[in-house]
């Protein structure tokens, strides 16, 4: 019954997943599948844009946890942007900001990937 949507956009090496609506145990598999597809395509620079996300439960957080190791093992990263305060609060309660980079805007998240690139070159 939940309304949930994932939209993907590629910006050169980076893939942005816009997730919208309600991310709970019912809709988490759809988000998981979108991430797994990126991994299968060997795209390891991922931004998850939460601008349209109204709700997240631990089932949604579990999806982030499930892929991050694989992504970092491939020298990629998953960065998160545009969380509204309600949604950010849930990430925060569980200590996510110590493991993931959060940004207020997508632009900043893209820039962070560029800076990392420069630093390693």
């Amino acid at each position, binding site marked *: 019954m*939940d309304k949930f949507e994932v939209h993907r956009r590629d910006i050169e090496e980076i893939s942005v997943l816009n997730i919208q609506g309600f991310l*709970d145990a019912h809709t988490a598999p759809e988000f998981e599948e979108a991430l797994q597809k990126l991994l299968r395509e060997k795209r390891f620079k991922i931004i998850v844009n939460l601008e349209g996300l109204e709700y997240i439960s631990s089932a949604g957080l*579990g999806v982030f946890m499930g892929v991050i190791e694989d992504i970092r093992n491939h020298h990629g990263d998953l960065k998160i942007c545009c969380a509204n305060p309600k949604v950010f609060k849930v990430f925060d309660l569980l200590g996510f900001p110590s493991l993931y980079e959060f940004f207020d805007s997508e632009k900043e998240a893209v820039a962070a990937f560029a800076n990392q690139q420069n630093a390693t070159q």
Partner: protein
Amino acid sequence: MTKKKIKKKKYQLRLPCDSENLDLIREFVGKIAASMGFEEEEVHKIELAVDEASTNVIKHAYKGVNLNNKSLLIEVFTYPDRLEINVTDRGKGFDPGKIKDPDIKHYLKKMKRGGLGLYLIKSLMDQVTYNIKPGVKNQVKMIKYLS
């Protein structure tokens, strides 16, 4: 002096054990909480706590259990000063004392997901108690006070 009757109201929702119903459960509890005067932020916490408890029933309670009527019961009691919510299943039960709080760094290393639900419930609500009788009645009772 007349003895003042305590204003308690009872709401009950029984549903099939299916994640498609989480939405319905959140709305149900959220509307009752809002009508009691909880602020939007508190309503969100209550909805999330009930979602987590219900998700646990849907994911774990009836795993490997052969039962015809795998249902999920949500009871809400409203009082002038607080909201009480019971989430009840008749599945296999668990030992809440054995479930440790999650260590997020540890989780990352093990690539393990989950273990977050019970911890979130504890963080979001004012009081949480478990009453486990496997196969008979497993209940998480959550209380939130109006501030």
